[in-house]
């Protein structure tokens, strides 16, 4: 058990920076908006979604209607809908922890779990749970620390938010090395860039995700029908038909 915990802690460390920074930023914003530390604590525990919590502060101070808040939350967090797909089997085997694993599946937890390379002497189930729990606690403490002591920090941490970007880049690179096919990553990149330039920074992510899903499904069925036509036993290759499809999106 101790081994799994230490292993989980090591996997979680890279995310401490982005969590600390975003959590503290949220706590400071709440404090400045006149909300006591208890609200930051509650948000950290029950919402646990970085960018959404920061958006929420402005919704709260504007006194937005609950309907508006619900809609906003849905659009800001809709990308999460795509995350669970990879973990349905893995999570439902976890029993008691199943619901907890689902509601705490943030961008960062998702990327750790996607790219983790379990060493042989650890318990996969426990490791997943510990990573999730450790990061949730770090998040809660960051939100609280921002609300309580944020004003004391000589607040020039500007730029530290880049740590989240850096983290996701390392995950991309690790996956790039471990996966045989690079087509999913290339599909994601192309659709993200295309929609970024068409729709702009605030609206590109959902279409980019949706189109990636579609393109990947099309690739699969194409490579299948091609196999049938040729009567070949090609190993799960998604190769040929792809490029033309990617450009269409």
């Amino acid at each position, binding site marked *: 058990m101790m081994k799994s915990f230490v292993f989980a802690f090591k996997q979680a460390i890279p995310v401490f920076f982005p969590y600390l920074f975003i959590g503290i930023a949220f706590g400071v914003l709440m404090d400045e908006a006149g909300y006591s530390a208890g609200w930051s604590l509650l948000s950290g525990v029950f*919402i646990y979604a970085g960018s959404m919590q920061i958006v929420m502060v402005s919704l709260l101070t504007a006194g937005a209607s609950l309907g508006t808040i619900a809609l906003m939350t849905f659009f800001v967090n809709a990308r999460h809908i795509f995350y669970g797909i*990879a973990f349905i089997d893995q*999570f439902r085997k976890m029993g008691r922890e199943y619901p907890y694993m689902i509601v705490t599946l943030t961008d960062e937890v998702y990327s750790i779990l996607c*790219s983790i390379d379990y060493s042989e002497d650890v318990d996969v189930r426990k490791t997943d749970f510990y990573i999730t729990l450790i990061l949730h606690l770090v998040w809660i403490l960051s939100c609280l620390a921002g609300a309580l002591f944020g004003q004391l920090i000589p607040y020039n941490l500007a730029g*530290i938010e880049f*740590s989240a970007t850096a983290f996701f*880049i390392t995950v991309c690179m690790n996956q790039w090395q471990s996966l045989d096919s690079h087509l999913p*990553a290339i599909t994601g990149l192309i659709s993200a860039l295309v929609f970024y330039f068409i729709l702009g920074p605030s609206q590109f992510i959902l279409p980019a995700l949706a189109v990636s899903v579609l393109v990947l499904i099309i690739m699969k069925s194409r490579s299948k029908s091609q196999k049938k036509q040729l009567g070949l036993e090609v190993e799960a290759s998604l190769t040929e038909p792809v490029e033309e499809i990617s450009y269409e999106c």
Partner: protein
Amino acid sequence: MNADWIYTLEALAVVALVTILTRSLPFLFFGGKKELPETVIYLGTVLPAAIMIILVVFCLRNTGLTTYPFGLPELLSVALVIVVHRIGKNVFLSIITGTGLYMVLIRTLFMVGS
């Protein structure tokens, strides 16, 4: 402020519940099935790589490309992360050097008056 605590509580609850909903949807759809549809299993293996790179673009989405410094601090720092990670293969080191460079760049070479 005091009179507003009910509204604040309601707002927090709405944000929390809708967030939980977005995270639960795939499990609500497929979690009860004994055998997952083939397409879902397939997507589970290929989608993460696509999503991860979309997340990188998402993180960089507010980079100003049309005004000074034209995204240069981001570009240089991303490049450093890639190089350091290629050589060192250490996530922690890659994050620290990349973020360090970014924080230095926006304070020195590419400082934008604020």
